[in-house]
């Protein structure tokens, strides 16, 4: 039931996204009128999907509890058991919930400030998140693990999702601002290339790229249910499953070249900004270096997709027993690690859009609201997110105190939420006290996007150590 609604809302958002893109580039008003209506329809469906998932989870909890206790639950016990499993307790659910919050907050902002339909970026983010969620095989609802069975889960988690969503939408408005004021391309170039180099390095797997110039990927097989699942194994002496990674031939050198070229382009663009050189447009060395980096990345991604589509079965080296009843032949598949591939594709798309705008931007006139308005909305959305983030972190600390006897343990998720808090604290302080409105603020807001995504995904991607917040990595 909820899965069908999620899928339906996904296709509705695809239509909404198309409307928003057309509304932005086409001079016909009709797209701008349809977009919000379709978006609202999708939100209704997805809201229904989330509710249905919550009810389903509640029913599962109550049934399991009643069976375990051998008696029916009544009153407050029943209520707490039924609502105590909100629809954001594993990776799949949290993705659907975050995409809903992003789209809802954008929709709310559009109504609140009576904006024309300009939310291409925000709707795009929501669409990507929900699409990523639908790549996860529909997980059964199982009763929560004891560590999560607490009313704190109803208090702590959603605060953070509101904060993440508000920040992501704010980043979208920050981008719109930069576009609206026609920020020169060297400035955006510094920003984009400085961000792209580490993202490609991280997504490619820092250690394998640097030590063996290899891109690593998790091969998949087919399990008993007929589903494609990433290959996991149990190392001897533990019952914690780990993914098996295998080198994808040919991809690593391209990615490494892209990293180096992006870094070089960052330096060249930085020098262009420092010298206040006249807008070099598509002819400067920085532009060509960035273009070369984009080509290298595109080739790497093309080889990767080629290996996924045409590659022969692979034989990963195993030390330990296989988890679950997965059967070969093992192949590279998108389902193996969609997050790393997604980050690479996003970086590629981002730089391609940047290069295209640098070359043909003068011809593109988007009908965006006044820059002051975009700037103000970015700020207002951050003031929505900031207190929720702060309260969410502190609530988590109090919960940790009562559960584990420590309120702060520098767990990766804790640390990254603190980094996010600091980034937006810098935004608020520079704006309110130093008066950094406009461009510098917009840059911080857009950079915040990367920080939030890393805080949300990076920890689950396993880029940092295992933490306490990786309950449902599946």
């Amino acid at each position, binding site marked *: 039931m909820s899965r069908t609604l999620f899928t339906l809302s996904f296709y509705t958002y695809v239509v909404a996204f198309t409307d928003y893109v057309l509304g932005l580039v086409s001079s016909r008003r009709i797209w701008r009128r349809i977009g919000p209506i379709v978006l609202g329809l999708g939100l209704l469906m997805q809201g229904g999907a989330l509710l249905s998932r919550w009810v389903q989870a509640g029913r599962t909890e109550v049934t399991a509890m009643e069976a375990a206790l051998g008696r029916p639950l009544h009153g407050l016990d029943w209520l707490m058991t039924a609502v105590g499993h909100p629809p954001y307790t594993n990776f799949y659910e949290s993705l659907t919930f975050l995409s809903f919050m992003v789209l809802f907050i954008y929709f709310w902002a559009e109504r609140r400030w009576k904006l024309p339909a300009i939310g291409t970026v925000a709707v795009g983010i929501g669409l990507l998140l929900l699409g990523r969620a639908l790549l996860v095989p529909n997980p059964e609802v199982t009763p929560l693990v004891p*560590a999560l069975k607490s009313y704190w889960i109803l208090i702590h988690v959603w605060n953070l999702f509101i904060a993440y969503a508000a920040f992501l939408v704010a980043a979208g408005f920050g981008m719109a601002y930069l576009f609206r004021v026609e920020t020169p391309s060297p400035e955006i170039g510094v920003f984009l290339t400085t961000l792209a180099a580490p993202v490609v390095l991280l997504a490619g797997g820092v250690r394998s790229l640097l030590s063996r110039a290899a891109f690593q990927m998790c091969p998949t097989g087919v399990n008993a249910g007929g589903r494609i699942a990433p290959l996991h194994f149990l190392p001897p002496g533990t019952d914690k499953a780990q993914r098996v990674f295998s080198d994808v031939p040919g991809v690593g050198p391209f990615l490494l070249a892209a990293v180096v070229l992006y870094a070089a382009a960052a330096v060249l663009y930085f020098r262009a900004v420092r010298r206040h050189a006249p807008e070099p447009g598509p002819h400067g060395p920085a532009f060509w270096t960035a273009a070369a980096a984009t080509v290298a990345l595109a080739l790497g991604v093309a080889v990767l997709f080629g290996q996924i589509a045409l590659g022969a079965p692979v034989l990963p080296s195993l030390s330990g027993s296989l988890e679950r009843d997965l059967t070969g032949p093992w192949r590279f598949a998108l389902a193996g690690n969609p997050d790393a591939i997604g980050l690479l594709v996003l970086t590629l798309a981002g730089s391609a859009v940047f290069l295209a705008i640098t070359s043909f931007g003068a011809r593109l006139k988007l009908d965006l609201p006044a820059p002051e308005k975009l700037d103000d909305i970015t700020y207002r959305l951050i003031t929505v997110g900031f207190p929720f983030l702060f309260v969410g972190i502190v609530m988590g600390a109090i919960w940790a105190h009562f559960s584990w006897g420590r309120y702060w343990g520098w767990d990766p998720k804790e*640390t990254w939420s*603190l980094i996010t808090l600091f980034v937006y604290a810098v935004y608020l302080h520079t704006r309110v006290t130093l008066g950094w409105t406009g461009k510098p603020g917009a840059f911080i807001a857009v950079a915040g996007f990367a920080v939030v995504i890393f805080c949300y995904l990076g920890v689950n991607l396993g880029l940092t150590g295992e933490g306490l917040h990786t309950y449902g990595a599946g």
Partner: protein
Amino acid sequence: MTAPAAALPQEALDRRRRDLADVVWEAGASLRLTIPLLFLIAAACTLGTFANPENRPMTEIRAAIGHAWYFPAYVFFGLNDLFHSWWFVLLLVLLTLNLTACTIERLPRIFQIALRPNKRLADAQLRGIQHVIRLRAAVPPANAAAEAAALLRARGFTPELLEAGEGPEAGTAFVFAEKGRYSRFGVWIVHLSLFLILGGALAGRLWGKEGSIDVPQDGGTFDFIFRKTASGTVYKEPLGFTVRVDDFRLLRYTDGSPRSYESDLSVLGPGGRTIEEKTIRVGEPLVHGGWTFYQASYQADPSRDRVKIEVTELATRKKTTAKLEKDGAVTMPGGTVFKAVNYTDRFESLGPALQIERTAADGSRTSFWVFQRYPDFDARNRGGAYGLAFDGMEPFYETGLQVARDPGYLFWLAGCVVLFLGLTIAFYTSHRRLWLRVRPDGEVVLAGAAHKNKEAFAKFFADLAAALGKAKGLRA
């Protein structure tokens, strides 16, 4: 040619010293220091999540990269445990000092704005105010002011009618009204709460103790916990009293997945007397003598698993039950001994099964299997004086307790409460002020400002201006 420093008069030296102090203070109390500090801490945190993600102890790291050229730097900067390294703590201390200086520097000005506002509107002030409109008065200033005050009162303000001014302002009537004065302090309440939270954390760090202990579920006692030093050495920290674990239960759903786990703890006094008893669960700790005992985890100890068997003397239907550890045995009155030798949770497709070794009174031995799912199997099929039924396996656990004492806890918790209050005030309230001035010549000026949520205030101000324009004694 410059005079040597010693030749400078004492006064100049003092001034130079004061200048230096001023410069240091100004830099320290400046937001221009806060921003790089926040960035540095954020960067350090980022590094910290990658530096030693598996939390490996130093001995292991030394074995892995001890020979590398950068190892001395790794040790010097404490990258194995970056969040407790000297330089990270130094950054946090600097941030706290900066916050303190900023508070001392700015708070008086905020008090000035919030508590001693300029209630009589002056022309110089008008330039900095967001909303200003001008009207004409048709009645004497005092009456016009009273009329405006009534309108403000109807909108929930408590306007102050100020007596006519002196000198050039003689005969002029002033009205001042404000709402949400406390809103100016919201940001400072948030910062104050940070002091409480950081102070509590510091107190916990300096005087707090934290450790853990695993205790067998069957009445194990302990009067110490294991603590770990920064370098990874483990030592025993005495509690000052004894705690006994009376029982541990892992509750399960019918499909076998864990539902909840809990331990029965007793605090023992002198002579082994029980002083306090409590069942602790995740999120429900026991507090005694300043120490808090948390149910943190559990570990299975398969070497001490027990099996339940029921032996029925077939002639009399007399039943004997026993719980046996591995290789434990039960001796029947006739001298027959049944010994549990092997357990498997899956015997082909027959489910959990137990292998029993029977030693008869004459010393002869036989061995056979009994099945949990088929309790009558043995009595029906094997033949003999006794029928055995296997009642299931009881796994043996050690309960994992986290034990801590944290003298900063109350500070910290108070800080959280103050933080919520501060955030609510800072982000959801606004200080709104209105000034009205009626000159004897009939000139009326209404000015208003809000320090947040300016859109809503703009609307409110426009409504108010319209209402004033319609008032009897005033004209737009």
